[in-house]
C-alpha cells in the first residue's frame, strides 16, 4: 500500500513538473470560458430566478472541473502514446490506473484555482451565495476521476491525437446533454433522465452542486458512495484492460 501511494506521489509530481512552465497560461485560458458565459448570461438573459442562476454558476464550475480534466486527460494520454512517452511508464513497475489518477490530479491542481475564482466572481456577478466547504475540495477528485479515466481510455485507444480529442469532444457533449449539469433534472425529458442515471457525470454533478450550496444530506452521501463504487470499478477496468502496448 505504501508503494502504491509512493508511486502515485512520484507520478503526480512528474505531472506537476510538466506543467510548471505553462501553468499561468492554462489558468488564464481556463477562466475565459466561464467568465465570458457569465457576462453574456448576465447581460442578455438574467433569469431573475436565484435557483436557476445557481444552476448556471454551479454548472459552469462542474463543466470546468469535470470536462476540462476529461478532455485534458484524453489529450495527454493520446500525446503520450503518439510520442512514445507511455513506453517509459510501461517499462516501469507502476500500476496503469495510478498514472490515470496522477494525470487527473495534475489537471485538477491546474483547474481548481480557475474553479475557485469562478465561484468568487460568479457570486459577485449573480449576487448569490455559495458555500465553499472543505468537503467540496475532497469531492472534486472523486467526481472527476471517472470521466478522466474515460478520457484516458479514449486517448490510449484512438489511432491519433485528432481522433482522440474529437471523440472526447463528442463524449463531453453527450455527458453534458444527458446529465443534469446546466439544467435541473426535472426539466429534462424522461428518457434523458433515465439515461442520466447510468452516467457517472450525473452523480458527480449532483454531489458537487449539493456541496456548493452546503447541503450535505442523504442524497449527497449516496452520490458519494455511488461515485466511490464507479471509480473503484473504473480503476480496476483501466488497470486490467487499458492496453498501452501496441497491438
Amino acid at each position, binding site marked *: 500500500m505504501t508503494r502504491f501511494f*509512493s508511486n502515485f506521489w512520484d507520478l503526480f509530481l*512528474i505531472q506537476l513538473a510538466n506543467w*510548471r512552465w505553462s501553468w499561468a497560461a492554462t489558468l488564464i485560458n481556463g477562466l475565459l470560458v466561464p467568465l465570458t458565459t457569465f457576462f453574456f448570461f448576465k447581460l442578455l438573459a438574467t433569469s431573475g430566478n436565484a435557483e436557476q442562476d445557481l444552476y448556471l454558476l454551479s454548472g459552469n464550475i462542474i463543466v470546468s472541473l469535470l470536462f476540462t480534466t476529461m478532455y485534458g486527460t484524453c489529450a495527454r494520454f493520446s500525446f503520450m502514446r503518439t510520442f512514445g512517452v507511455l*513506453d*517509459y511508464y*510501461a*517499462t516501469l513497475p507502476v500500476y496503469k490506473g495510478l498514472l490515470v489518477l496522477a494525470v487527473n490530479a495534475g489537471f485538477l491542481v491546474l483547474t481548481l484555482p480557475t474553479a475557485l475564482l469562478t465561484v468568487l466572481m460568479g457570486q459577485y456577478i449573480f449576487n448569490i451565495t455559495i458555500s465553499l466547504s472543505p468537503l467540496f475540495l475532497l469531492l472534486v477528485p472523486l467526481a472527476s476521476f471517472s470521466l478522466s479515466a474515460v478520457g484516458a481510455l479514449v486517448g490510449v485507444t484512438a489511432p491519433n491525437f485528432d481522433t482522440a480529442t474529437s471523440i472526447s469532444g463528442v463524449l463531453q457533449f453527450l455527458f453534458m446533454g444527458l446529465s443534469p449539469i446546466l439544467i435541473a433534472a426535472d426539466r429534462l425529458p424522461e428518457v434523458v433522465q433515465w439515461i442520466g442515471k447510468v452516467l457517472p457525470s450525473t452523480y458527480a454533478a449532483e454531489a458537487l452542486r449539493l456541496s456548493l450550496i452546503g447541503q450535505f444530506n442523504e442524497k449527497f452521501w449516496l452520490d458519494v458512495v455511488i461515485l466511490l463504487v464507479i471509480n473503484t470499478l473504473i480503476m480496476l477496468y483501466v488497470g486490467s484492460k487499458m492496453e498501452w502496448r501496441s497491438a
Partner: protein
Amino acid sequence: MTHTKLANLQGLEFTPNQTVYAVEHITKRYGRGKAAQSARPANLDISLEIKQGEIFGLLGSNGAGKSTLIKQMVNLLSPSEGRISLFGVDIAQKPEIVTRKVAYMPQKPNALLDLTAEEAIYFTGHMRGMSRSDAKKAAAQLVEQWGLGEVRRKAVRNMSGGQNRLVSLAITLVGDLPVMILDEPTNELDPAFRRQVWDYLKEQNTSQGTTIILVTHNVQEAEHVIGRVAIMSRGRMVGMGRVSELKSKIDQSVRLELFIKPDRIEVCESQLVALEQARQLKPYHWVVLVPRENAEEDIYKVLGGIRLDNLEDFRVQTASLEDVYMAFTGRTIEDEDE
C-alpha cells in the same frame, strides 16, 4: 552490490550461464486480419537465447527489425507469433517480470522532457524501488558522472541532442537492474563520451554481472564490447555467434580499404566494379575483401590495377565486425540504410 545479491533480494537466484532471455520463433506482422497476413513482416521467425552476464549485440541497418525485436523483448509490442521468456517466465503471462528486471533505453526518448536531469533520474530510481535518499544520491552522482552538472537546472527538452542522450542513459542505469537493453546508446555523442559509454558498459558487465543487450550502428566501436552478436537483415536473423567465431568464418579474407582521389573516382570505379569482392561504401571509399592465401599478391594486383597515384590513402586490415555483417548480408550497413 553484485547482481547475485540483488537478484536474491528480489527473489530470483542467478546462476552463471542461466538463460536470461529466450526468444522462440518470434514473428511480427503489423495490422489485422488479411492485411496483416499479406503485409511484409517486421521480423520473421526469430529465435535466440541470451545468457546471464552476456553483452549481446543486435546488428543491422535501419528497418532490419532490431528495434521491433527489442520492443517485443521489453513488452512494448506484442508478437504476432512466438513466445519470449525472461528468467524462464513468459513475459506475456507475467509482464511485471520485465518492469522489475529490465532497464530499457529507447532510441528516441521522449518522456520526462520537462523535468531536469536530476529529477528524471531520481523519479525513475525511486519508482524502480530505491529509497528516496538512495535515489537522490544516485541522481546527483549520475549527473556528475555523465558531465551534466552544468545543465542540472535545465529542462531536458532544452538540452543538446548529446546531453539528452546522456540523460536517457543515466535514467537507464539508475536502480542497477540486472538486465539492460540499450537502443543506439551512443547516437549523437561526441567521440570522448562514446568511448566513456562503451568503457562504462564493459565495466558494469564485468563488475556487476549485468546482462547487456545492445542495438547499434556503431559497429567498429561496439566490436570491442560485444561478446555475441546477432545479425539482422530485412526482418530476418541471418547470423549469430561469438564475434570471434563469426570473424574466423570469414577470416580467410583480408580487408583492403581504398580512399580514391575525388577527381579519379570514375577511372577507378570501372576497375573496382569488376572485382567480385569489392564493395563501395561511399563514392570515394571502397572495401575489397582479399582471400588470405596469396593476399600479398592479390593486394599488389588490386593496387597496381588502380594505381597508387589515383588514391589518397589505403589500409590493409584483418576482418572486422563490419566485414562479418557484409559477408552475411551481402551489403554494408550503410548500403542497407540507403
